[in-house]
């Protein structure tokens, strides 16, 4: 059955059917033509795949970030980032990375971060004389910080599939995000110094304070989100809902940019962003359920563990599989299909489930930068008005840095596990 399922799925996918539909339709086709099970199970499993309360935090996290974005948050965060590290060589480039780090603490999505920061900073960088390929490559890669910095949609999905604590996963993402961000800032500074790009004047205490005050309302959001989760007051879904209320309050009352009509538009757009994402979890869970019911996870585990029990080799193999999967699948479906196959094996070999979640996330973040399905590339194409090939070539140097970060995070568990071990 699995021998037929995978080729049918890829056939539908290459034709251009949406990923969620390809996943569900391939299972329905296998049931219909090979018999054995009623295709009626497909809509039923799609429904039950979404019927999980911790997944429902996803639309709320997206809504909170959209509310903040429309309230002019990106501008304020960029202003703050620029006043803090704009004095470095290529200050604008370093500030772009730092702004992505900060926006990531509000948004859990990679393409959303590229739009929020890139649509403002890409034109600014090009006007300031930066190379346009360098600029878009850096921003498209820095956008992957969105889901690595907590909150993270991909980690919510990983947590709900594997039964791992979402709070611990969020905490585990923090140091890897700083590692990636640090590497990107170092690269941007080195590249800019070599090219002699402009830098801002050294900041004064008062200029940083002014920028901080302008961004303060925005930076209050991660305080509520993470403070609520780690003090144990809120579940992740509740803290996301509280963040929506806060975001709406800031937009409607403080900044007065979100009125009645804007509220409705934001709600509709949030539906249009998060609905297709939840549908992917629905389609992928049908697919994953069929794999599980035919015993694929245990077969795969015994096959791999009989080949080698060396964790270094197994993690390297998983990294390769995930990098290839990341080319063809988005993060959500890759996690739902592959986490139940890989996580038990990794755990057997002594890799903590939280650590493995971060390894998967970093792999799939690189997958956001690889065609044919690389969502950050698609968004960056729109921001920079370039072709897919141009944007992809532009991201290669920074993608190599991501690979370096991936190797570090894979083999140094401390980077992921240090903060969760303090908190839990």
């Amino acid at each position: 059955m699995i021998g037929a399922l995978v080729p049918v799925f890829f056939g539908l996918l290459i034709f251009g059917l949406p990923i969620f539909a390809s996943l569900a339709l391939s299972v329905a086709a296998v049931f219909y033509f090979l018999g054995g099970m009623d295709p009626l199970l497909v809509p039923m499993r799609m429904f039950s795949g979404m019927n999980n309360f911790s997944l429902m935090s996803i639309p709320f996290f997206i809504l909170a970030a959209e509310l903040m974005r429309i309230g002019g948050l990106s501008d304020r965060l960029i202003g703050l980032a620029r006043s803090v590290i704009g004095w470095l060589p290529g200050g604008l480039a370093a500030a772009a990375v730092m702004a992505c780090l900060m926006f990531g603490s509000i948004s859990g999505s990679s393409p959303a971060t590229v739009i929020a920061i890139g649509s403002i900073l890409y034109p600014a960088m090009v006007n300031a004389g930066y190379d346009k390929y360098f600029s878009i490559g850096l921003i498209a890669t820095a956008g992957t910080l969105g889901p690595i910095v907590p909150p993270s949609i991909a980690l919510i999905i990983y947590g709900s599939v594997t039964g791992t604590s979402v709070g611990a996963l969020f905490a585990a993402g923090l140091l890897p995000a700083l590692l990636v961000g640090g590497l990107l800032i170092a690269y941007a500074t080195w590249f800019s110094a070599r090219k002699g790009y402009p830098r801002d004047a050294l900041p004064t205490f008062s200029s940083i304070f002014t920028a901080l005050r302008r961004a303060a309302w925005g930076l209050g959001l991660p305080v509520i989100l993470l403070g609520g989760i780690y003090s144990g007051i809120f579940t992740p879904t509740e803290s996301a809902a509280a963040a929506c209320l806060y975001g709406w309050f800031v937009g409607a009352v403080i900044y007065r940019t979100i009125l009645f009509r804007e509220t409705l538009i934001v709600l509709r757009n949030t539906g249009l962003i998060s609905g297709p994402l939840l549908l992917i979890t629905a389609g992928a869970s049908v697919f994953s359920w069929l794999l599980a019911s035919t015993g694929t996870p245990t077969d795969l585990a015994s096959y791999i563990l009989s080949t080698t029990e060396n964790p270094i080799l197994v993690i390297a193999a998983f990294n390769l599989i995930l990098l290839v999967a990341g080319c063809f699948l988005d993060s959500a479906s890759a996690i739902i299909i592959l986490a139940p196959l890989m996580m038990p094996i990794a755990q057997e070999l002594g890799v903590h489930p939280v650590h493995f979640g971060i390894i998967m996330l970093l792999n799939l973040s690189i997958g956001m930068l690889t065609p044919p399905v690389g969502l950050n590339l698609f968004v960056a194409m729109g921001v920079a008005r370039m072709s897919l090939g141009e944007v992809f070539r532009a991201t290669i140097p920074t993608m190599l840095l991501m690979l370096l970060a991936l190797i570090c995070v894979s083999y140094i568990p401390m980077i992921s596990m240090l903060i969760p071990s303090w908190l839990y």
Partner: protein
Amino acid sequence: MILWLNRVVDWIENILVTSLMLVATVVAILQVIARYVFNNSLYWSEELILYALISMSFLTMGMGVRYASHISVDAAYAFAGPRTARVLQIGAACLGLIFAFVLVWYGSRLVMNTSRMGQLSPAMQIPVGYIYAVIPTAATFMALRYLLVLRDLVLGQGYQAPQVDIKTS
């Protein structure tokens, strides 16, 4: 006819998706307030949020086609010439129609089976069959969307998704 029906569906989907998002968000906020301010958990809130957001997601099946916001692989279109690309796109739209039909057919059977067994939801005690009804309904809307895409492709003009008015500040 197809154009007119799609305009009606545009309107229905917009209103439903917006109001389901609104209901889910307001209830989620009320749940937090009830628990921490009034120390009183709402027994129905989690289920209502789940069903509202699941229905919302199914309704975006059609909207995602209309606004071209579903994630898909369109690499083959880029490599093929314009005529082959059109044939592939027509093929993809037909596959989409088949998928919609599968969901309408088996979704309706699911609704009927569940209603016959009289299964009720755990907290709110609503018949689960009513909730499953969103699947064939939303799939019908999706079929209409794919018919619209197919019409534009066959007329040779290529489907253009309307721009979503996201204010980028």
